[in-house]
């Protein structure tokens, strides 16, 4: 084996320019993989983490079953009927929710359960109006069953317990209405036509545009009273120990109760699907870059084999086995991969460090002052693995061709 390493290093060492070009190819492919993965997973992990921290891991809400069957039964079960405008069978509320909360709290997988009343409304500040989602919460319970407090600018969740006219405003709603400080009075209009002057006590800033642009938290009792729905809730929110088992637990609970149980994965299914598509597209681009860079290795090894036909012939005459000839040229590719990877690791690290410092105002699905990066070792290890696979792929064919050379034909030609 030492003869093989000896020859490999000599062959690579004497081709400085070609080696440099090939190893830069590997380095660029590796860097592209690491940085693109870092950006992509950084964004996705941030989004998912915010969702897991903020949103219920499991939501229990009334089923939205329409009353179609009853209408069809009345007309004729055999008739071909298209039902237009069927109404929901049940009212938007959870009956016996206090008992249900106790039952859910007894599950070992559940950390905490909170209950909410949610409704649509309109907020008005001065001349500006905005449609919003109103969420009536019980602050003490909410603090146990969610990480809402983490996202409050002034950490004044408890003011909702003390002041029935207090509310917490989503950061984008506040910005759009021009509210910059607490204490401002806003007018809320409810679906039943009721209105109420409320006081802004805090701002809620999750970083997820869609949430910060719609949500207003207010005391549960206030919302129940204004909607004329005393003691009613229409959502139970569960926080569980293992977020990855949310779907499994949702199915389990769903079999035991008559309400719809939705996991956070199902609630954000569209986003998770988009992330999958995004991953596929990004990997396709990155793999194309690695593929092109591995052509550099293919090129240098192929040219080496063409150039070294005489030497390959004498090595075979000296008793080298064809597999040893394969290894000599395969190791040339691997040496280029090692050198290219070292350079790639340095480049990727520097580029990530630079991107981490860049300040850009991003406002789309999430809001951020800079790039969300996932600077994990996993990206580097995967980068090394994929560039190694491509390097071996690119080196193998010329190496195999080298091992199939017939020394007699070569000796006759000189």
């Amino acid at each position, binding site marked *: 084996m030492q003869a093989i390493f000896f020859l490999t290093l*000599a062959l690579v060492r004497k081709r400085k320019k070609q080696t440099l070009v090939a190893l830069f190819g590997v380095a660029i492919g590796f860097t592209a993989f690491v940085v693109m993965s870092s950006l992509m997973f950084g964004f996705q992990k941030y989004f998912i983490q915010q969702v897991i921290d903020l949103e219920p891991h499991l939501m229990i809400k009334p089923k939205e079953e329409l009353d179609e069957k009853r209408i069809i039964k009345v007309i004729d079960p055999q008739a071909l009927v298209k039902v237009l405008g069927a109404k929901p069978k049940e009212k938007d509320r959870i009956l016996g929710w206090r008992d249900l909360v106790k039952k859910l709290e007894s599950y070992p997988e559940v950390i905490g359960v909170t209950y909410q009343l949610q409704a649509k409304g309109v907020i008005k500040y001065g001349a500006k109006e905005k449609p919003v989602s109103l969420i009536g919460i019980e602050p003490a319970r909410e603090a146990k069953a969610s990480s809402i407090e983490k996202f409050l600018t002034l950490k004044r969740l408890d003011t909702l317990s003390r002041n029935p006219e207090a509310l917490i405003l989503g950061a984008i709603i506040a910005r759009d209405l021009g509210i910059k400080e607490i204490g401002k009075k806003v007018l809320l209009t409810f679906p039943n036509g009721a209105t109420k002057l409320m006081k802004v006590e805090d701002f809620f800033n999750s970083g997820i545009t869609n949430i910060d642009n719609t949500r207003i938290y207010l005391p549960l009792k206030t919302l129940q009273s204004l909607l004329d729905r005393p003691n009613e809730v229409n959502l139970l929110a569960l926080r569980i120990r293992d977020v990855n088992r949310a779907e499994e637990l949702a199915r389990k609970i769903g079999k035991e109760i008559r309400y719809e149980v939705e996991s956070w994965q199902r609630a954000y299914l569209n986003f998770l699907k988009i992330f999958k598509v995004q991953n596929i597209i990004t990997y396709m681009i990155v793999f194309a870059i690695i593929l092109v860079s591995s052509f550099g290795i293919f090129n240098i090894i192929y040219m080496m084999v063409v150039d070294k036909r005489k030497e390959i012939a*004498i090595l075979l005459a000296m008793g080298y086995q064809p597999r040893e000839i394969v290894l000599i040229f395969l190791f040339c590719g691997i040496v280029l991969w090692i050198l290219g990877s070292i350079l790639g690791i340095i480049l990727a690290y520097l580029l990530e460090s630079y991107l981490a410092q860049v300040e850009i105002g991003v406002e789309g699905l999430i809001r951020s002052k800079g790039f969300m990066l996932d600077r994990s070792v996993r990206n580097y290890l995967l980068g090394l693995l994929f560039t190694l696979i491509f390097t071996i792929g690119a080196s193998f064919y010329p190496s195999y061709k080298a091992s199939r050379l017939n020394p007699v034909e070569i000796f006759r030609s000189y």
Partner: protein
Amino acid sequence: MDWIIKAEGLSKFIARERILQNIHLEIREGEFVALIGPSGSGKSSLLYLLGLLDEPSGGTLWLEGERINFADKTSLARLRRDKIGFVFQFHYLIPELTVLENVMLPLLHKGENFSTAKSKAQSLLHTLGLSGKENRPIYELSGGEMQRVSIARALSYNPKILLCDEPTGNLDSKNTLKVMELLAEINKEGTTILLVTHDLSLTRFAHRVIEILDGQIVKEYVPT
């Protein structure tokens, strides 16, 4: 048995063209045999068969009493590594390696450690009059020196048989004489040599001359 190579009815056809036919040959251990004949007579083809580089179309070959199985490529490579050395008209040295490294290469391949391989190669280069050139790149050597390095490389792993295909073909008369004297000396130390040449003047170094014509052995004689 004192023969080291024995061929019985060896033949070689390439695309129905007869290259060698019905070759019967015995070479004794320690013998220096010259294989002569005009260009295209089949000398080199016979050398490639005897050197286990090529597969015969028919016939049988024995090496040190062992019948050669040409289908077992791994064993053929091992036999070449352990028993046969080659010197060609062209030196086939590896230009990426120095003189010393070229000679060390077969030793490292055989499993010698680096320092042993280095000292053996140095001693061999010294014997062949190449002291002081160990670290030179190949392109700085003269034709004669290159050929001596290729002989050193072939001898480095102590082969029992040295197969030389026109080793002086590219050399001037002075270097030709040096190389031939060197081969004669190597032979005196016990290495069997088969020399392929079309230069009849070189047959004087051999114990026996075999003349080949149109792929068949036509004459064998002891040179005067």
